[in-house]
């Protein structure tokens, strides 16, 4: 049980990064279906950074913890933001259709990530780097099961939770957050009160993509212990992250709990013994089924607090009112 919760919480960071990033993007009225591709891109960027850093060391078995983590995070963020930038350029400035651009970005991003991983990333030192990135607090073991569940994770898990809380606070309590929500709800009105709609959209897409990109980086470097087989795994997490956005009703603070629930559902098949192949297939269905149900319930009840941003998916053209 402790083990289940421990790996579920650890795993939840993959979803939490992706989900928080997508929420931030969707709040500006942009349904970014490129998140799976962006998460792959983040993976490639982070891994590239780690690989370059490890290669530059004279003794690769003893990297500097702080530098390693920072380089990984920054590169993952940067690469994911670049992919997000393509999306932003096409959908905000060039006013292209968001669904189409997002899907194209997923195709492009997965290819791009694999391209980088195959040609430029030397994965020899990844297991060493991963043990550094995934190390928990030193006092975790003294606290028994409590420490295992809450303090045994790598720094990125806590970063995910902190980012989710910060984004949540930012959206709900800050003036810029209010402006951003206005842009997502009614860009015309936001423009009329002097909010720079395009600037808000660009920044939220870039930052949101960057955050999402950390999810892929976390998966490879922390959860998978430096193993990377193909983009397909991370792509699947991207779609789940988009599902999670609906599941958590566009709220980053709920996303923390939601991602743990998804994490439990994801790791559960590995903990349930017996006739597992049929049962695990069914368990893997649950996140999607639950998401569908949530989507139905919110649309049937029509509760105002639980709706997607009303301008979600619509292109804003200033001269057309």
């Amino acid at each position, binding site marked *: 049980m402790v083990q289940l919760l421990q790996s579920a919480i650890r795993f939840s960071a993959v979803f939490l990064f992706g989900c928080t990033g997508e929420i931030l993007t969707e709040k500006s009225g942009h349904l970014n279906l490129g998140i799976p591709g962006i998460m792959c891109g983040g993976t490639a960027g982070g891994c590239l950074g780690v690989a370059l850093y490890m290669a530059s060391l004279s003794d690769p078995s003893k990297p500097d913890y702080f530098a390693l983590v920072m380089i990984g995070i920054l590169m993952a963020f940067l690469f994911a933001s670049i992919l997000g930038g393509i999306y932003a350029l096409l959908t905000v400035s*060039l*006013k292209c*259709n968001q*669904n189409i651009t997002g899907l194209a970005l997923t195709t492009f991003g*997965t290819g791009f990530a694999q391209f980088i*991983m195959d040609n430029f990333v030397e994965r020899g030192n990844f297991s060493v780097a991963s043990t550094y990135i995934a190390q928990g607090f030193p006092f975790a073991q003294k606290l028994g099961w409590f420490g295992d569940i809450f303090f045994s994770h790598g720094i990125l898990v806590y970063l995910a939770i902190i980012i989710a809380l910060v984004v949540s606070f930012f959206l709900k309590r800050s003036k810029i957050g209010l402006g951003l929500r206005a842009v997502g709800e009614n860009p015309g009105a936001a423009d009329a009160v002097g909010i720079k709609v395009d600037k808000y959209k660009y920044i939220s897409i870039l930052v949101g993509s960057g955050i999402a990109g950390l999810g892929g980086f976390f998966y490879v470097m922390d959860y998978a212990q430096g193993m990377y087989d193909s983009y397909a795994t991370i792509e699947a997490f991207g*779609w789940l992250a*988009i599902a999670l956005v609906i599941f958590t009703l566009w709220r980053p603070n709920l996303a923390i709990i939601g991602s743990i629930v998804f994490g439990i559902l994801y790791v559960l098949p590995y903990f349930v013994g017996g006739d597992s192949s049929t049962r695990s297939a069914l368990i893997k269905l649950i996140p999607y089924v639950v998401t569908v149900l949530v989507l139905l319930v919110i649309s049937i009840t029509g509760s105002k607090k639980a709706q997607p941003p009303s301008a979600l*998916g619509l292109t804003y053209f200033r001269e057309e009112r």
Partner: protein
Amino acid sequence: MSNNVKAKREPLFHIVKREDLKIGYKIMIYAIAIVVSLFLGGIMSSLASKGDPFSFFVSLIDGCFGSSRKLWVFLQQMALILSVSMALVPAFKMKFWNLGGNGQILIGGLAAIACMFYMGGKADDGVIVLVAVIASALAGAIWALIPALCKAFFNTNESLLTLMLNYIASGLVTFFLAVWVKSGSGVLEPIKYGNLPELGNPYILIILFGALITALMFVYLRYSKHGYELSVVGDSPNTARYIGVNVKMVVIRTMILSGAICGLVGLLLTSGMSHTIGVKTAQNMGFTAIMTTWLGNCNPLMIIATSSLVTFVTKGMEQVRMDFGLTNDSIANLIIGLVYFFIIACAFFIQYKVVFNIKLKKAVKATADNTVVASTEETSTEIEENEEEVK
């Protein structure tokens, strides 16, 4: 007043919606975009493998038209993409974002395989095929009916719902594979019973299906009352209601049609080609078809062009991979993504135009103390710019 004009910085350019552009220009814009994107792709492939960009194009063409077998495969693949696109066209024309092509194909294929699995050996092959055809169309239709009903009655966001249904469909496939395959490997051996008949060679049936569906859909959209109704619903649901169209009915009817075609494609992919099923059976065609349909502007004739382009790049890239010794499909995805981006961006240059304000800025500066003159100047420069654009 004059201070206001001075203080407000004019942006360098602004964007104006364009009136209808001549077809020649449109084709030129697209052609440039495709050539540029493929050229970039060539450079990238040669970077990855140290080949030269010229042989990239040779391989690309060779992969599609190099031999008669390659040509058949190309046509077959194109027919499949075209069929799925035709399933999506009516939905997209209705502004219903059916992102669930993958799921509808998979569930149709699953229904077909289920018929083959349970009836194989017990019934006549002809009977099995007949039942499989009905079952797959029905399964696809039901899978599309779910979001249609939700959209019609609860106004649920259909793009998110259909997206989720894709994954439920692929989960169901995994589940049934786990039930059917006793060894637990999750790989179903090809089933020998109830396969679709081959007409001469394995490709013709699918190609004929693609051609037929395209022709029928063209007629349906252009000449039938249904086709007219769904385009009105897409343009303005309120207008549709006003003229007495039952919007809910149209949404449901159209989606049943859309799902049924996808289901039949699932039948072709399983019973007609692989004789087995896996989570990747749909080959992501649902998404590819979204691209071809949208890029083809929901016009069946243009979609023929876009789906042949996409198939050309996909199939061509397989050859490039072999010739250049690339280990996986990463570069193919990269280049297809690139082609998509460029074509998507074309829509902007066709719908809008960029008007530069450099002249305008000078005019405003010169007459900053006289707002009235400035404003008339502004309109006149804009007209001038417009004329230049038209030329």
